[in-house]
């Protein structure tokens, strides 16, 4: 006869064993300011990236925006083109749906990878074209652009052994 130890307090000992195993496991949380996880390749980060050279000032993005959030003012240029004088995004009201990025016919607008966008005042969240401009070092998300996504690093997953976050 097999001795059943279910009701002899063995569960308590087993539970203690489980917690002790956890004690010696590596924590799955990251120490955020020192270690940052790589976000998803198609991350809809809290900013837009605007390519000045490709933008023709057609304002398709402004028309597709559900919030009416993108303010674009253009003037006639000398070479049969439009010069974008003002390109402003209120990121405090933006829902980062990505419709503007999808609708851009000239591949001039992208979502960003940045996520540390908190500010003390709402006015600081209104981003001008200088802040949104694509400059070297500004990262573009692969959202709606599979080519960019292919060039981005793999996302860090908070699974055992996969916390490949680098100390920065």
């Amino acid at each position, binding site marked *: 006869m097999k001795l059943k130890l279910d009701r002899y307090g063995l569960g308590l000992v087993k*539970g203690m064993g489980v917690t002790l195993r956890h004690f010696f496991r590596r*924590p799955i949380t990251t120490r955020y300011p020192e270690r940052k996880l790589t976000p998803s390749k198609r991350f809809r980060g809290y900013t837009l990236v605007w390519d000045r050279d490709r933008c023709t000032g057609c304002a398709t993005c402004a028309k597709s925006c559900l919030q009416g959030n993108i303010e674009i003012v253009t003037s006639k240029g000398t070479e049969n083109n439009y010069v974008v004088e003002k390109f402003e995004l209120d990121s405090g009201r933006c829902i980062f749906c990505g419709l503007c990025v999808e609708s851009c016919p000239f591949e001039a607008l992208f979502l960003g990878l940045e996520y540390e966008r908190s500010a003390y005042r709402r006015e600081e969240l209104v981003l001008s074209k200088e802040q949104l401009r694509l400059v070297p070092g500004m990262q573009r998300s692969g959202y709606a652009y599979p080519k960019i996504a292919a060039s981005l690093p793999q996302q860090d997953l908070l699974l055992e052994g996969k916390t490949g976050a680098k100390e920065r």
Partner: protein
Amino acid sequence: MTLWPAGNYWAHFGVFAAIIIAFVLLMVMAFIWFERRAFGPFQLRWGPNRAGPFGFFQPIADAIKVLLKEDIVPAAADKLVHWLAPVVVFLPALLIFAVIPFYKGHGLVPDLNIGILYVVAISTMSMVGVFMAGWASNNKYSLLGGMRAIAQMVSYEIPLVISIIGVVLLSGSLSMYAIVGSQDIPFFLVTPLGFLIFLLSAMAEINRGPFDLLEADSEIVAGFHTEYSGMKFAMFYLAEYGHALAMSAIAATLFLGGWRGPGDAYAAIGVMWFLVKVFFIFFLLIWMRVTFPRLRVDQLMGFGWKFLFPLALINLFIVAAEVVYWGDITWWMVLVNFGAAGVLILVWSRLFKLGGGRVEIEA
């Protein structure tokens, strides 16, 4: 007893009172840090790691924060009792250390001939403070917490004291110094069941771990200290860890052999052994707290009265019979007591029934 500034009782008492207060406050800080830091890995996170190396200054930051907070007293509270309660809760934790021998004869009064009796008498006092806090707050949850504290204390004091009597029988003395001196074999080996019962009832006594019913957040807000804030709340926090420290120190003294260990001829190593044992006991408390869910009130009472109390009594009889039969602490005792502990726990867990929390009323 060795008087440290030799010859003068008052100088000795003054110096050691200062040492004990400093020791308790520092150790409470260390315990708060240790517990939070140990909770981290248990829950697969890091624990405090912002303030200082390994978050070591976190308790200091918390203390400063809590000191700067406003002290709110409810309008309908009993002001004097409300003010007095935190002191009454904290003081016993400090007083217990008067009889704890830190190293050989060094301590305030380490060889007080009724040492352990004094500890038992003093440690109970804090419950009066808890009830005072619960009653004076003029808050139903506080009062419920205070009532629970009293019920819990009354139930768990008995197995606690009976398991201590087993140790007293083995060493033949009530003095903490003599109890440590007689532990050539540490008493947690000689009476494993007594150690277990002491640990569990001590956990209930200091309201920790699965027995923290009197501050069950999901039921009665924060129990007796719901209406406390600022420094008064800090006193309760201090007292909670002070009692944990006191119980760890008593367990280390009674069952793990206090300062004794390899190389205890040197005072520093002896004190280090004592602290290591204190932290080991506290780690056990943390481990149990992090593992088990909070008990229900009837489970708590049932566990105390139907499980711990009879086992403590039987253990006491076994130890008494062994002391009469062998007359001295031998390794045979260890063997017999480990067997007896195993059999008793198995048998009693079969007999132990809670009644499923149902209350049947006869018509």
